[in-house]
């Protein structure tokens, strides 16, 4: 391939990416504008809160407890190399709250929620249920998308908060049961070390990741191709994109919170 052709390819790819970002931004703006204007579909919102938030609790809890436990073991082993085993409570707390809690919960939500939203909405699209909604004077953005994104915005920060706590408890259990830490000292160290800033950053990340995960599920679902293949592709792309965007957003947010 000639350098010029390569440049052309690169240009086309960049333009494609920009166009996709443009469409996605329009989608997000439209979602929030529908969220703020009546009519509101309360039952849909409740159902979305249940699906996105409540039913995600088990997987979030399990992810967090194992991660917290493993983190405590690693930090103890690593810290031992320079006689710093005592920092386990502090590092577990910071690691969970600042990074692992939000990122792992975000990725779990992408796996659980984004995929199911994308598959559900894509199926509705393919079976003309979205067209049927429109003919029944119900705006799909308002009825299907806004409630789900709202649920992501509200419940994922809560899930992250719960994940943070469960992760710390996982570390605490391992540290006190297996590594010989004093329970009371462990908790005091954790609480004294964490700053409110850490907690806020964790929850803000949760909110952003929640919006990313739900929006992408809806976006790929609404733009699904035809047939079973269309649904499959929409689901796969939604999870891939949500996961990558969550990690990218995490990097940016970490920069914003901790290097300024």
């Amino acid at each position: 391939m000639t350098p010029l052709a390569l440049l052309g390819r690169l240009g086309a790819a960049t333009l494609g990416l920009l166009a996709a970002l443009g469409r996605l931004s329009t989608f997000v703006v439209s979602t929030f504008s529908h969220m703020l204007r009546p009519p509101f579909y309360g039952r849909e919102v409740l159902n979305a809160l249940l699906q996105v938030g409540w039913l995600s609790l088990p997987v979030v809890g399990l992810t967090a407890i194992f991660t917290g436990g493993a983190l405590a073991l690693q930090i103890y082993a690593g810290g031992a190399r320079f006689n710093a085993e005592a920092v386990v409570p502090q590092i577990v707390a910071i690691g969970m709250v600042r990074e692992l809690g939000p990122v792992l919960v975000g990725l779990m939500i992408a796996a659980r929620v984004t995929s199911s939203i994308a598959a559900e909405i894509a199926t509705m699209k393919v079976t003309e249920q979205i067209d049927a909604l429109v003919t029944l004077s119900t705006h799909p953005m308002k009825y299907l998308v806004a409630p789900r994104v709202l649920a992501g915005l509200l419940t994922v920060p809560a899930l992250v908060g719960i994940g943070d706590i469960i992760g710390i408890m996982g570390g605490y259990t391992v540290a006190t049961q297996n590594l010989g830490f004093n329970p009371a000292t462990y908790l005091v160290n954790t609480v004294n070390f964490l700053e409110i800033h850490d907690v806020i950053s964790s929850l803000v990340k949760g909110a952003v990741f929640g919006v990313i995960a739900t929006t992408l599920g809806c976006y790929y679902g609404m733009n699904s191709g035809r047939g079973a293949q269309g649904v499959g592709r929409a689901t796969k792309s939604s999870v891939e994109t949500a996961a990558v965007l969550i990690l990218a957003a995490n990097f940016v947010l970490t920069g914003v919170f901790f290097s300024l």
Partner: protein
Amino acid sequence: MTDMTKPAMIEMKSVHKAFGANQVLRGVDLSIARGSSMVIIGGSGTGKSVMLKSVLGLITQDSGQILVDGKDAGKGHSSRDRDAFLARFGMLFQGAALFDSLPVWQNVAFRLLRGSLKRPKEEAREIAIEKLRRVGLKADVADRLPAELSGGMQKRVGLARAIAAEPEIIFFDEPTTGLDPIMSGVINDLIREIVVEMGATAMTITHDMSSVRAIADNVAMLHGGKIRWTGPVGDMDASGDPYVEQFISGSAEGPIEAVR
């Protein structure tokens, strides 16, 4: 009876629509008088469903004009105008397009449970059950989910949903496909009743020639992306058009290619 005496409720002027390289509509001209029943016939894949969807604005035509009650259906509508526009329509989709997360009665009463036509739940349910009865379904299907019904039952639920809010303009995409002959007769009578008693304007797609004779005031045949022939149902047998004749007789011999 004929188009000339009453003002047109729906008017399509030189409507074109392509999907990529697939030219589906190539200049459709059609006028449907207020309070009359138009039946569209034509081979599979000729664009009959696309025609209905473009009147509703679910598909945007590439060129040409569609007037509903003298007003341009597609252009420059605020969302409130669009709601008012859609509130005049009922549509039965070819694949029924029932909302599979909602029980049957909530599908039928969808419009009556939210938005401008909202009414108390008990009343909406009663109306839903009454509409189900009219399409030959018993009250005990009301609380089932669409997935638990047979194809023909789903079709009839779709029909009940289309007529539930007593719209002025009703589109039926293959209302009797998948029904036994007796039930087809019931549905044909129902469609006729809706036009005669409620004064609705109906546009029906069907492949079933006995339905055509039972339902239609006027018939139009779509072929090659254009209206090949249109006229009162009484003139259909003496149309003198070889395409129409072949379609009515169901013969493989004639100008319409039957690829085997």
